[in-house]
């Protein structure tokens, strides 16, 4: 297929070039054909680093050219193509078709394991939802960094729940449908309770009753169902 591109590969031959460009000899008198003008505008718009105004185009095209008309033709030619000829202010430029914008992104996916802090926080939210940050900290026994919860929210496993109707009206956190999907759970209630964890050997016997979810009446309905999971 390279053979078709002799004009690019051909050495220094000024003659060959002149032959290819029928306008070179007589452009002083006759304007190039519209097809030729279109080629010219196409090349200029392609190679220029910023949008080009009609005036600039006219200045650069040989005498007698009609830049505006060439633009109309060229614009039509690129309709529905991968790049469009668009108008930016009073200038023109080629731009990627909007529907293909996603091709301009090189996506790389890196699979990363959640940090221990994140998964602990997530577990507490899942088991105790709706739960405030202060409660998470109390259960974990260490403070929870802002970033940890932000990350869980960013990956859409956790979202904000209703504000707790206590002084300061703290926000609560709950797990999302995405979380349930990822962990293959129908609802947070399906999370194995302490009893099952113990039966599975994941939980030591000596540990007493898990403090139940907060008894805030507002949240009670949401939290309902979880309470029983923690009963011995």
């Amino acid at each position, binding site marked *: 297929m390279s053979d078709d591109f002799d004009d690019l590969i051909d050495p220094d031959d000024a003659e060959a070039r002149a032959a290819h460009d029928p306008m070179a000899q007589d452009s002083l008198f006759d304007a190039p054909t519209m097809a030729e003008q279109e080629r010219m505008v196409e090349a200029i718009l392609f190679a220029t680093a910023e949008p080009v105004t009609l005036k600039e185009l006219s200045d650069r095209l040989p005498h007698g050219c009609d830049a505006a008309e060439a633009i109309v033709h060229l614009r039509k030619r690129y309709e529905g193509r991968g790049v469009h000829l668009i108008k930016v202010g009073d200038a023109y430029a080629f731009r990627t078709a909007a529907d293909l914008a996603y091709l*301009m992104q090189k996506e790389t996916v*890196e699979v990363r394991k959640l940090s221990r802090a994140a998964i602990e926080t997530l577990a507490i939210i899942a088991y105790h939802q709706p739960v405030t940050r202060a409660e998470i900290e109390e259960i974990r026994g260490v403070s929870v960094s802002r970033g940890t919860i932000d990350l869980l929210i960013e990956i859409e496993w956790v979202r904000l729940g209703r504000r707790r109707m206590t002084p300061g009206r703290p926000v609560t956190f709950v797990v999302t449908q995405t979380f349930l999907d990822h962990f293959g759970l129908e609802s947070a209630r399906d999370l194995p309770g302490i009893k099952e964890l113990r039966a599975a050997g994941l*939980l030591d016997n000596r540990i007493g009753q898990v403090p139940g979810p907060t008894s805030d009446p507002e949240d009670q309905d949401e939290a309902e169902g979880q309470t029983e999971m923690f009963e011995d």
Partner: protein
Amino acid sequence: MSQTPNLFQRDANDQTVSERLAAEALIIDVDGFEGPLDVLLTLSRTQKVDLLKISILTLAQQYLAFVERAKQLRIELAADYLVMAAWLAFLKSRLLLPPDPTEEGPTGEELAAQLAFQLERLQAMRDAAAQLMARDQLGRDFFARGLPETVERVKHVKYTANLLDLMQSYSRIRTRDEFRPFVMDRENVYTMEQALERMRDLIGFAGDWTDLSSYLPQGWDTHPARRRAATAATFAASLELAKSGKVEIRQSETFAPIELRRKDSTHER
């Protein structure tokens, strides 16, 4: 090679005026030359023939004249020019003398052919370089996209965790005490020093036989671990006091309560 017929046509001293002038012209801008091969190539042009048909013998003479001239003009020539001169003088003698069958190595003709090849190859590369530079060049004759769109590198970090991670993690929080790293639990250790101090204070008031267990400090007598620690420390402390003659100890039988009392002879504490 085709230059062989020419080899013996010229005498070594048969140097034309034009050749002498050419050599002198070369001298003037000797710095402009890129080594002896470049000089040879330039000299070869005076022969006005195809490089394939060039007379190496003539060329050698021209070159030697060039070096001779430089010496007369006391122009310092770089070493490689002189090496080439020596080699060409040797080549010239080989080409002029009838071949000695006993001699090893390449013949004069072979050496001449090699030099001709090198000159031809250098000329070919120069022509190729000129052709290359005369090509349409990017940024001069044809152009790349002037307004490239940057390809955004989107890095998606996909976090994973499975249900087991979640459950184990939760279990770990709920059973944190069991997962504490091993440390000596000072909280439930009652040291002998502590017991000694306490007993020194109390022993003054106990003139009668008193059960050792009554010396256990408050709060150390219910929790089994604490009780064990306190008992051991108090017992050790009482032995220490007995040793220093401050108390007497008795035990009526095995596993019977251990009793102690202040030794009467000792009044000061």
